[in-house]
């Protein structure tokens, strides 16, 4: 039986009676989803609802000469054909910049291309019809005449003077650049006994959410109000953006997010076709639905990770790392994505590279350039997989060069566990991390020595297995330092509103959202514990800007650490309110009472004094019996935002064990381990499943996933038969371990766990492949994804 039993609480600091903190309670919404009774946006239908399909540019860069829609009008079910110029009258364009990313620039982006299409897949005309099939039929009849323009596709030459400038108003194709030089890097390389330099390539890939992006926009002209059903991670952010670009007040826009079929950062951005759908609803005064099909997803869902990083490391023979240096280049498509920008990934790479290590010398440069390809933006673990793979790849190459065990080299350089608080060479502030404890835990958990012995033995039989490691740090619980300070109206605070109903049950509305991570369970656990009821008496509402506190939603591993803390505080506040009433009813000092298991009890002896249901009955139906001047407040709201630290950094270490078939180049993953430290663990099972899912997404990047473009900017593999994703048969079992360093910023002490798996997996798989092939003299593989043909090339076999 591998299903973990619910484990008892272990956390003394949060030691409430009947605590749910640290227990693997199941998520409240799973039977609904398991029985196919979820309500995803793609399931939503409304009276008078129409469907939109888009005519999309077949060219990476083209001037739109003309759009003829005459013949479309006779198409069955046809309602409207709308061009970019027509939609511009309803909705203003946007520019994806943040002021704290100094110098970052971009061009205004319209919901539908006007005059010029800048990537293959950009919408150039919308067609609305009674059904999606009819809308697609009608799209076939729209005649668009294009004049193809030169496409900028290679980041390496994007800044050359002879390369055309995509947006003339910007002057060049540079979106953003950043340089950092700390310590004495040149001197440190001179003083090193060995220097390793190599270039890492990362394949552009994408989120491939199982449910594509979906939106239903419903403009009610009589109320002058827009209701948007959207599969998004940030309902309040979208409310702000819809209002802003339609010229409405927030009060006129309601965003409703029910079940979301996967997000991973894909569904936290502004998409032109979704903005167009909202504008079309306003224009047509009726509900309009758009659900991306799989090909549209591939050419319009944000891509990520298209980076070339030249990396360099210096080490002494005793294993001391003397310096890191990186030169990063990335091409992000024709626009910086709104409102989070496409500069964050590169910025994170500069911030995070070398982050786990105590090395005082670090130089970094990054350049972010425009291209005529689909846009890139933040996808799960933003920048981390690249920074980690570069850092950890360099470390293992250096270890091989000086003949030191790669785990030992790390042990000699990881920031000491007693060094906190401290900061990274790049300036990241660390409250408390546990690199050495994590390493020791991983070493024991995987039986490293035993695996090395097995590896050696099998090599004698011509079986090539590799062990690869990756230490990592992860940005979680972002404060306003992430987006707010740069001018984006993306809130970092979050709230919870708790209500005791007339039967003594609790309902809570929270600003964090649920896309499968388990935010609802975590909020329920925190509230049930803080207030004192069995968890099945808690009902959680998320994803509705009319009915939840203003909040950021779920991204950047913030839901548990921020949303959980808000629920915890709200639960405490409501408990105090309830005990005040109980004290009045029982003529007892409220300080001497507590709520346990849904009953008001004596704090000291635990004697039952008053069921909550009875208290609620009196408060709601017989308030006349309460003493004069006592007003029951059975609803409480609390908000929380991290203030002491800009981010709650987490840390950990992963290991991959795999076997390379040196005749076919195929990699068989045998096992994967991840030890991580997300502070207080509210729900161990949910943390582990975030890790496992994240690891597999990282494995996808390492071995399979790649949006392949030709030099004219055409996506060559925009379908799931040609773009490979991890499937069950190729994936290993994944063992998780934990260290616990709570953050002092909140009472709960929980940090995030959503991205740790994705951060470390690609680097550890890369290192394991190179470890396997090292005795064969293969050139180190540093160009993801590591497909069989690349492996055979490295072995000199093809």
């Amino acid at each position, binding site marked *: 039986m*591998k*299903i*973990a039993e619910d484990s008892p609480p272990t956390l003394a600091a949060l030691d409430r009676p009947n605590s749910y903190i640290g227990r693997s309670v*199941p*998520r409240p*919404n*799973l*039977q*609904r*989803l*398991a*029985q*196919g*009774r*979820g*309500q*995803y946006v*793609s*399931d939503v239908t409304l009276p008078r609802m129409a469907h939109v399909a888009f005519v999309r540019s077949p060219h990476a860069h083209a001037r739109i000469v003309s759009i003829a829609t005459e013949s479309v009008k006779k198409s*069955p079910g046809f309602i409207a054909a709308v061009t970019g110029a027509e939609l511009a009258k309803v909705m203003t364009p946007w520019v994806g910049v943040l002021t704290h990313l100094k110098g970052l620039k971009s061009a205004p982006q319209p919901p539908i291309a006007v005059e010029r299409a800048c990537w293959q897949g950009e919408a150039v005309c919308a067609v609305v019809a009674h*059904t999606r*099939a009819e809308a697609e*039929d009608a799209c076939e009849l729209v005649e668009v005449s294009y004049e193809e323009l030169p496409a900028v596709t290679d980041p390496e030459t994007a800044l050359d003077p002879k390369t055309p400038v995509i947006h003339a108003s910007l002057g060049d194709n540079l979106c953003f650049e950043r340089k950092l030089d700390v310590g004495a890097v040149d001197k440190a390389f001179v003083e090193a006994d060995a220097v390793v330099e190599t270039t890492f390539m990362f394949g552009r890939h994408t*989120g*491939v*959410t*199982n*449910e*594509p992006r979906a939106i239903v926009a419903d403009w009610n002209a009589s109320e002058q109000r827009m209701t948007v059903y959207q599969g998004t991670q940030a309902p309040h952010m979208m409310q702000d953006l819809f209002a802003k670009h339609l010229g409405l007040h927030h009060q006129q826009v309601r965003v409703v997010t029910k*079940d*979301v*079929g*996967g997000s991973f950062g894909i569904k936290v951005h502004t998409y032109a076709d979704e903005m167009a759908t909202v504008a079309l609803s306003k224009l047509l005064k009726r509900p309009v639905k758009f659900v991306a*099909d*799989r090909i549209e997803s591939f050419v319009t869902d944000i891509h990520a990770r298209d980076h070339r990083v030249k990396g360099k490391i210096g080490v002494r023979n005793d294993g001391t790392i003397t310096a890191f240096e990186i030169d990063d280049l990335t091409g992000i498509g024709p626009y910086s994505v709104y409102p989070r920008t496409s500069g964050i990934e590169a910025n994170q790479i500069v911030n995070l590279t070398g982050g786990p290590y105590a090395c005082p010398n670090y130089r970094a440069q990054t350049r972010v350039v425009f291209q005529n390809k689909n846009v890139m933006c933040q996808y799960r673990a933003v920048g981390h997989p690249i920074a980690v793979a570069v850092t950890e790849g360099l470390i293992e190459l250096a270890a091989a060069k000086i003949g030191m065990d790669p785990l030992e080299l790390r042990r000699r350089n990881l920031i000491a566990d007693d060094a906190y608080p401290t900061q990274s060479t790049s300036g990241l502030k660390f409250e408390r991390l546990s690199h050495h404890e994590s390493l020791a835990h991983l070493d024991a958990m995987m039986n490293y020595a035993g695996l090395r012995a097995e590896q050696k033995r099998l090599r004698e039989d011509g079986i090539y297995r590799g062990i690869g490691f990756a230490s990592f740090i992860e940005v979680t619980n972002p404060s306003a330092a992430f987006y707010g300070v740069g001018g984006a109206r993306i809130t970092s605070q979050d709230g919870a509103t708790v209500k005791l109903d007339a039967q003594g049950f609790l309902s809570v509305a929270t600003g964090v959202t649920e*896309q*499968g*991570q*388990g935010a609802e369970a975590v909020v329920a656990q925190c509230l049930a514990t803080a207030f004192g009821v069995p968890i099945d008496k808690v009902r959680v509402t998320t994803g509705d800007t009319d009915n939840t506190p203003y909040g950021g939603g779920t991204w950047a591993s913030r839901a548990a650490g921020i949303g959980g803390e808000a629920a915890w505080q709200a639960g405490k506040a409501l408990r105090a309110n309830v005990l005040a009433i109980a004290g009045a009813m029982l003529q007892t000092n409220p300080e001497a009472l507590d709520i346990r298991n849904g009953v008001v009890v004596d704090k000291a002896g635990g004697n039952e004094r008053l069921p909550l249901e009875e208290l609620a009955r009196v408060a709601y139906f017989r308030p006349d019996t309460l003493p004069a001047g006592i007003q029951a407040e059975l609803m409480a709201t609390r908000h929380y935002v991290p203030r002491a630290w800009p981010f709650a950094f987490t840390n950990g270490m992963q290991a991959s064990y795999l076997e390379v078939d040196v005749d076919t180049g195929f990699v068989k993953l045998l096992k994967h381990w991840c030890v991580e430290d997300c502070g207080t663990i509210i729900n161990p*099972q*949910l943390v582990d*499943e975030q890790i*496992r*899912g*994240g*690891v*597999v*997404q990282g494995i996808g990047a390492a071995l399979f996933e790649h949006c392949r473009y030709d030099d004219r900017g055409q996506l060559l593999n925009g*379908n*799931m038969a040609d773009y490979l*994703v*991890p*499937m*069950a*048969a*190729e*994936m290993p*079992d*994944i063992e998780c371990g934990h260290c616990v360093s709570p953050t002092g910023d909140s009472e709960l002490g929980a940090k995030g766990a959503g991205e740790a*798996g994705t951060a470390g997996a690609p680097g550890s798989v890369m290192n394991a492949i190179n470890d396997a092939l090292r005795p064969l003299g293969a050139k180190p593989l540093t160009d993801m994804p590591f497909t069989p043909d690349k492996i055979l090339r490295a072995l000199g076999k093809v």
Partner: protein
Amino acid sequence: MSGYTLDISLTVNGERLNAHVEPRKTLVDFLRDDLSLTGSHVGCEHGVCGACTVRVNGAIVRGCLMLAVQCDGATVETIEGLSDSGEVADLQKAFERRNALQCGYCTPGMIATVQDLLKRGGVPGREEIREHISGNYCRCTGYHAIVDAVEAVAQARARTQMKK
């Protein structure tokens, strides 16, 4: 292309019904759009992701690769039917307890696929389970938890079988 329809009669989740459908309409679109059985999901529409997996005449099929008109006279079972009959209740419970679903979008197809394996009896090994669900894409879980849940149900069903 739209407008022209064919008449079909079929049994869906035990209910007999007649319908007029366009020949081009896929089974999953018919189930979702015409019958409001939205538990079957559309993921890729080209037979790769398995989110639309349903049972037709006892065998699992991809609802996006079969046309509704091909189901004339057929018996179709969707997650709604499998849930109501209780046939997969133990699987659903195990998926819940093991958190073998996150966003849940793949889950109805996954449950149908897994039930197809477990119906054969015996206790499949982890490799066999992984192989059998290798046509069902899950982006959230990394599959480990799904394999755990299926393995647990297979063992539990085998124990129940032995007692009988």
